């Protein structure tokens, strides 16, 4: 394999990893801060993709679709938190799994009612739709490059918000020691609602950016949900930095696994997960007692 091909495969791995990070970071935020296992996370990823399809059709602009899709997901997240998810705080995981599984069924029915069962294609914005010629027969889609850059920006933004802002401080305080933070006068009702809504919006955003290269189909969230769980277990539950490391590792393993060990590629990421968990049972960046 020559250097350029290797570079392109590396790019493939990073692109795959960054989208995975987007979705997994939402999942790990909700779990790390609210303590809620949200199995419906993948369903919101799918819903994001369908919203991208529908809004591009209606508005004719992918950028507007992106904005609209994220906004709708955010509002849906706020409503869901107010109506259902708040009942789950402090409950055992079985209740959380049951409720979020119910949500999957409901979201899937809603999707069926609104958008039907068909496979849809979404066009990327015109100025991102070309490809860059690398060698005479190797080119790379501009949109995939744009996804890489966009997702990296979102990742940096998440880190900055969590580590540098007052909101981030409150969120961290809530995750570390909720009782103490409450004594200091922080109103967690509202914080919880925003955190959940942001988590859902991140899942939908993942679905929106992937729509133009993946097509939109029922059940597209299932595989993504499983991968997201692998990412956060690998990186350390509740750690956003861990999700970044985990997502990148999975991107690399999957891409180079397919190239060098095609027959074993489907199990390689699970082998990786097992190996990491033997070495660090709480994940790469997880706290041992978390």
């Amino acid at each position, binding site marked *: 394999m020559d250097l350029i091909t290797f570079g392109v495969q590396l790019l493939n791995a990073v692109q795959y990893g960054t989208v995975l990070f987007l979705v997994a970071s939402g999942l790990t935020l909700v779990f790390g801060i609210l303590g809620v296992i949200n199995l419906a996370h993948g369903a919101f990823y799918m819903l994001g993709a369908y919203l991208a399809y529908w809004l591009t059709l209606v508005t004719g602009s992918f950028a507007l679709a992106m904005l609209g899709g994220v906004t709708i997901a955010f509002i849906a997240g706020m409503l869901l938190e107010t109506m259902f998810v708040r009942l789950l705080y402090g409950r055992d995981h079985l209740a959380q799994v049951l409720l979020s599984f119910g949500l999957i069924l409901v979201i899937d029915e809603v999707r069926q009612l609104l958008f039907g069962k068909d496979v*849809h294609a979404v066009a990327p914005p015109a100025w991102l739709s070309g490809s860059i010629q690398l060698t005479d027969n190797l080119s790379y889609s501009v949109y995939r490059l744009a996804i890489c850059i966009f997702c990296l920006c979102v990742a940096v933004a998440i880190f900055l918000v969590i580590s540098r802002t007052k909101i981030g401080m409150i969120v961290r305080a809530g995750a570390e020691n909720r009782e103490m933070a409450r004594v200091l006068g922080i109103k967690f009702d509202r914080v919880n609602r925003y955190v959940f809504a942001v988590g859902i919006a991140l899942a939908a955003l993942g679905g929106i950016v992937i729509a133009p290269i993946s097509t939109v189909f029922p059940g597209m969230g299932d595989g993504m949900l499983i991968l997201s769980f692998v990412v956060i277990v690998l990186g350390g539950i509740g750690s956003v930095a861990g999700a970044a490391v985990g997502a990148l590792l999975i991107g690399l393993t999957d891409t180079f696994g397919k190239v060098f060990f095609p027959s074993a590629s*489907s199990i390689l990421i699970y082998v990786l997960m097992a190996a990491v968990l033997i070495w660090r049972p709480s994940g790469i960046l997880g706290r041992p007692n978390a």
Partner: protein
Amino acid sequence: MAIDDFMRPLSRRGLLSGAAGAATLAAAGPFRSAAFAQNAPLKVGMMLPYTGTFAKLGQFIDDGFRLYVEQKGGKLGGREIAFVQVDDESKPEAATDNMNRLVGREKADVVVGTVHSGVAMAMVKVARDTKTLLIIPNAGANDATGPACAPNIFRTSFSNWQSTYPMGKVMADAGIKNVVTISWRYTAGAEMVGAFAENFTKNGGKVLADLTVPFPEVEFQALITQIATLKPDAVFSFFAGGGAVKFVKDYAAAGLNKTIPLYGAGFLTDGTIEAQGAAADGIKTTLHYADNLDNPANLAFLKAFKAKTGKDGDIYAVQGYDAAALLDIGLTAVGGDFTARDKMLAAMGAAKIDSPRGPLSFNKAHNPIQNIYLREVRNGRNELVSIAQANVDDPARGCKIS
């Protein structure tokens, strides 16, 4: 219908007359069935995916079948047809139960199904055990008309082997020396790619690499980069549904469609072509149907299907339509007497159908003998290029019927 129609309370008179009617029917029941056994409707069990990934395919098969029955005035071979429907959801784990329910509790005389090969193989097993007449209107698993063949099992679609074998020669004849194949790593993928490779290597071609991804994964980017570095003369692929849409778009986005021509099984562009858009232009595939087949049967079929459903008929609708035509031939041969089973099965086995897809007959394993067409995607349609191979007969390896 207004909501009142549902809400209106039942009047006492209505209740009484209803009860009287029901009582009469119940009393007359035994006599009726004894006197008119021959004329009781034949029960056709439709076991198809009405929900899930293959829902659209199942609906088209169902519509096609019912269209034929309607055209015959609701009767096949003079016998009234009644339907009972089961949604198989393309779930192999529930297939045996669903099939047993149709055969056992619903007492279906004939079962028509299904799309998913795994589900179909479970249905084949039950049909063999219970001797129920089964007509498969889509699933292509080679085994169904191979080792698992039986006198009471027919297929009106294709075998996986059949749909891609002719492509081996087509590509070799086009001067293509070496190819890369790419597919999902499951039975249909292996059977379709295998049949293509069998004929391609026989005609002097070479397969550089056989790339696969686990079913139903859709992240192909790494393998597409791999294809670019291997630089084959062409690529042969099999994907279907959402996976096919994504593969074709990824292939075009990587710019490969300009340098390495893409070939495939017909399912790559059938039912997916609209979502693929311009990315599908120029893809050549083989299948037992093409959108613009210019024969009278196809033109009449497309017109009638459009009139009934408002949709454009496709290969799935044709396969359902032909399933009804095949049953019609069997029932006509025995004057609607379903008990004259051997005579009916013999007539079905010898059937020659003027199908919308062209001439259709059956081999000893009850797999179709049919033309396989070479099609090319032009202007969002799978347009006919030529007959890749006429009257293709599946070898039915392992079938013990003689």
